[in-house]
């Protein structure tokens, strides 16, 4: 077997020699961990594996998702498997998409000191401070789109001197946008009503009564939208 390139990493301060080709998550498993916390979808969508690291000899603290990042020599690694962020409870049906909503539910966003630590920390490279500014102004649609790729890993909130829980603010803005600000889909409402009134029952029942051969004939000659 060809000689593998190996690197040294430090998991909670302890040194392990691992193949350089692995992600941080895989390297932890190579080192002998069976992960319980800090591991989820393994594809960069769930935010379970927020990781903080510093390269030996450097000062800067960096952040990443451990499933989406290759190991580097001299990485000192710690995971952030849980962050005690504050989520406010609300009844979406009773909210209105006005700036007052944020003032009531997440007033601390107005204490933002503009340090931009959240943006620097985001492993998804979102402009976090910018979407908080949109939320401050009640511009929920912009906040929603700017925060859309958030995986709620919590790193932003962990770095914030103003105690803002950014990812919850983004989520609220997105739900307000999806429910109230996005244009209504008229034909969807119509179709749901038709189904409730039983207008599609007969066509469906007729289809269910067909034999497998009849279904095959229908399926193989069905018209396919271009």
């Amino acid at each position: 077997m060809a000689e593998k390139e190996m690197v040294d990493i430090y998991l909670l301060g302890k040194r392990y020699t691992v193949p350089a080709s692995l992600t941080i998550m895989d390297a932890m498993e190579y080192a002998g961990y069976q992960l319980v916390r800090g591991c989820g979808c393994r594809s960069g969508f769930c935010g379970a594996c927020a990781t903080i690291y510093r390269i030996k000899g450097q000062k800067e603290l960096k952040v990443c998702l451990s499933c989406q990042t290759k190991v580097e020599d001299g990485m000192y690694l710690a995971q952030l498997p849980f962050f005690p962020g504050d989520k406010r409870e609300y009844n979406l049906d009773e909210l209105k998409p006005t700036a007052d909503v944020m003032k009531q539910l997440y007033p601390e966003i107005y204490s933002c000191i503009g340090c931009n630590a959240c943006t620097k920390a985001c492993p998804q490279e979102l402009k976090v401070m910018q979407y908080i500014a949109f939320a401050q102004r009640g511009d929920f649609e912009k906040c929603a789109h700017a925060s859309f790729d958030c995986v709620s890993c919590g790193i932003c909130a962990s770095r914030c001197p103003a105690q803002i829980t950014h990812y919850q603010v983004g989520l609220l803005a997105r739900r307000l946008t999806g429910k109230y600000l996005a244009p209504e889909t008229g034909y969807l409402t119509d179709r749901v009503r038709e189904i409730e009134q039983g207008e599609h029952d007969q066509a469906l029942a007729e289809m269910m009564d067909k034999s497998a051969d009849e279904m095959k004939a229908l399926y193989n000659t069905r018209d396919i939208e271009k």
Partner: protein
Amino acid sequence: MFTAEMRELIKKVEATRTQRLGTAFPRMSPEEKDEVLKAYHPDYRESGFRALSLGVNRGDKVPVELADLLEANSRLAGQPLDLSRPAYDVDVLIVGGGGAGAAAALEATARGAKVLVVTKLRLGDANTVMAEGGIQGADKPDDSPALHYLDVMGGGHYTNKKELAAALVKDGPGAIKWLNDLGVMFDKEKDGTMVTTHGGGTSRKRMHAAADYTGAEIMRVLRDEVQNRRIEAIDFSPAVELILDADGKAAGAVLLNLETQEYLVARAKTVILATGGAGRLHYQGFPTSNHYGATADGLVLGYRVGAELVFADTIQYHPTGVAYPAQIFGALVTEKVRSLGATPLNIDGEQFVYHLETRDVAAAAIIRECYGRNKGIQTPTEGQGVWLDTPLIEMIHGEGTIEKRLPGMLRMYRKFGIDLRKDPILVYPTLHYQNGGLLIDEHGRTSIPNLYVAGEAAGGIHGRNRLMGNSLLDIIVFGRRAGAHAGEACRNVRLKALTLDHVAKYQQALADSGVVTDRVSPLVLPHYTHGRHED
């Protein structure tokens, strides 16, 4: 970053691109599909399956890795447990915190039931968050539930349980509206028209999406709503065995606190299993697009109390898993990439299959191209792959399309130095979905009184093959149905004394059928070493 050899091969793809653009590749005939499936689909490889030696499905073939877990000892064998003092006592116990579990929790709570959600990892850590492409629903004026039904049945090779397929399509538009009203940000035009695409095997463009974060967007909204409704959810506490009462009704579960390693008893009037899939069992050695927790725990729990498995021998291999780079090997390349026009190509830069065949056919065709015709592209990890010509997308739909419609894919590849707007990507089938599962009726009920199943753990809806976008739909439709039914039914349940006698009986059945093993199930967590022992 591509290797120098790959860079050379990409030139062949570039050379044929303009000529391919706008030239339609023919769909396979039913006979051609049948032929490629039988010769190359992993479901037809006999060595991958074994007949079960005990239980309801005795004699039926299931993947050997699943058989190993069904023919294994209970974690509770020999464990003293006091069932008379439950730590939790609720109306509806939901095992699993993905999309189906969360949907069930909301509906049961809306009916006044006291609900407890227990999950192996965190609430929302599930395959739901990785469903990138979209959710089907026959809402547009030129579409109908009946047309959707025809697609579902054709895709499932007419094996689906008809009443389940009918429930799926009939509730489809209602599910989309329910999500929309909860604040899910679907892609829409300015006039409210949903931006929809085809999936493999659909006759109408009914795939609704939220960029390529559809499942993640749905899950984070549902999780937020579960929290707003103050529904109790306990993380890192998987169920390791179901509990019955003296009448044989489902009556709760034994939970394992993964942090303290303590067993806890949850008593419940109704139980909904929403534990998801089995990708992390890596059938036939395939990589998987599945979540870390997808270890078929619910199938094991259900089977031990006598619930029946259906279509457990049919697995969905997603045609386009990542073949390269190795760091994300097996991760999903959403079907939406093909919906938007990217086509599969062989080493000579030639298309070899229509890009929107159903998943089983497309996967089999890619395996044939690599190992039947030797036209695959070698990867550094000794595997093979085929090109997926992603730059076509922007040639068809215009510059900026990928950033807008596939931001997750763009980001994932960019982290490893590949820009899929400029270069094609290498893909190979990845273990994606269990088509079958525990048999349910249209309310999510199993043959065991008060035991429901919803989501990927359930079987019958999709028959032998599921279409893209019908899984996100299925978890919402059947999660809601099970939650609503259990939330009502629990009012009339009078539980008798709790028992784990079925576990002792199962242990006896193992011995009687000659299974001698030290295997223990459910698996709970996979175990990876990434080749440490060979180093």
